[in-house]
């Protein structure tokens, strides 16, 4: 149990951070990350190396977050989402932008801007983006976890990226002041 506590202490921030990136709520992220650790306790002996265990832990907390989002109906029905996007969401209309001059920003400031922009995405778009860009999951895997089609994953990722490009393009305007 003590060894497990050490494991928790070493990796708790990472697991919590993943939960927070998906839920955007501190209390929920804490509860879900703790639930993930509790679930993992029984399976601990299946892992030989700590690195594979942490990856697996991250998957557990992602699944718990997705379950929670579904339970709370924060994921809209695919059909409604599709209607929204087909009718011409803002992201489809926007001109192409180039979020480029970020090298002058301090790394932490850039990360904060990105995090703020992520907070403005819908749960579906943000989840698809987080799972693809930060967890390196393939479309097929994301579709399985989000319980939707690969086509829907591609759409969500596309709109998420376009919206992020628009939000982060504001960096260029501020740079010129």
């Amino acid at each position: 149990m003590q060894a497990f506590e050490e494991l928790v202490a070493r990796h708790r921030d990472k697991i919590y951070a993943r939960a927070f990136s998906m839920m955007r709520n501190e209390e929920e992220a804490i509860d879900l990350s703790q639930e993930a650790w509790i679930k993992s306790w029984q399976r601990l002996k299946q892992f030989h190396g700590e690195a594979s265990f942490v990856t697996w832990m991250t998957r557990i907390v992602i699944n718990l977050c997705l379950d929670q989002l579904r339970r709370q109906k924060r994921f809209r029905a695919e059909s409604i989402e599709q209607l929204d996007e087909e009718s011409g969401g803002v992201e489809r209309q926007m001109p192409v932008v180039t979020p480029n001059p970020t090298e002058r920003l301090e790394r932490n400031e850039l990360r904060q801007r990105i995090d703020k922009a992520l907070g403005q995405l819908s749960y579906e778009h943000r989840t698809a983006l987080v799972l693809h860009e930060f967890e390196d999951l393939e479309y097929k895997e994301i579709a399985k976890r989000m319980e939707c089609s690969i086509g829907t994953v591609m759409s969500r990722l596309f709109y998420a990226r376009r919206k992020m490009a628009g939000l982060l393009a504001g960096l260029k305007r501020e740079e010129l002041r």
Partner: protein
Amino acid sequence: MITHETELKLQAFLDGEITAREAAVLKELLGHDPEARSLFEEMKSTRMLLVGNELDVKLSETREFYWSKIRRQIEVEDRRLSAPVARELMTSWWVRFLVPTALLTALVVLVVVSIRTREGSSPQWAWEEGHEIETPLEETSSFSFRSEAAAMTVVWVDSHHE
């Protein structure tokens, strides 16, 4: 103007989620279509911006506080899982003999220690510290933990009101 289907294919090309044949078609498109090229560059830039730039978020709770709730729930789960096994063991006739003997031995040791305590030595047994806790209301639960650094025993009361 490129179709939405082509936009998604360009994205799949960027993400390496496309067949070699489709990739070849898209490379050709990117070679002569400026709109496709601009969109592809935008997606590529956005992707590059995000990679490695996720904000480091840290837990605000202390190590002990965060761990205490996990530990408590693990103990509850472990007890729940071992209960059927324990019941099976108890029916064995030899256990019915060993358990009272073990209890007797434990009590004898306790008596010896309590004699030594009266003589001034420090007590060894954790139960003397007292860790009994009760939360009678249905809508509340609690867990306790100890911080040696702060010389503090905490009972955290969770209310389950919606």
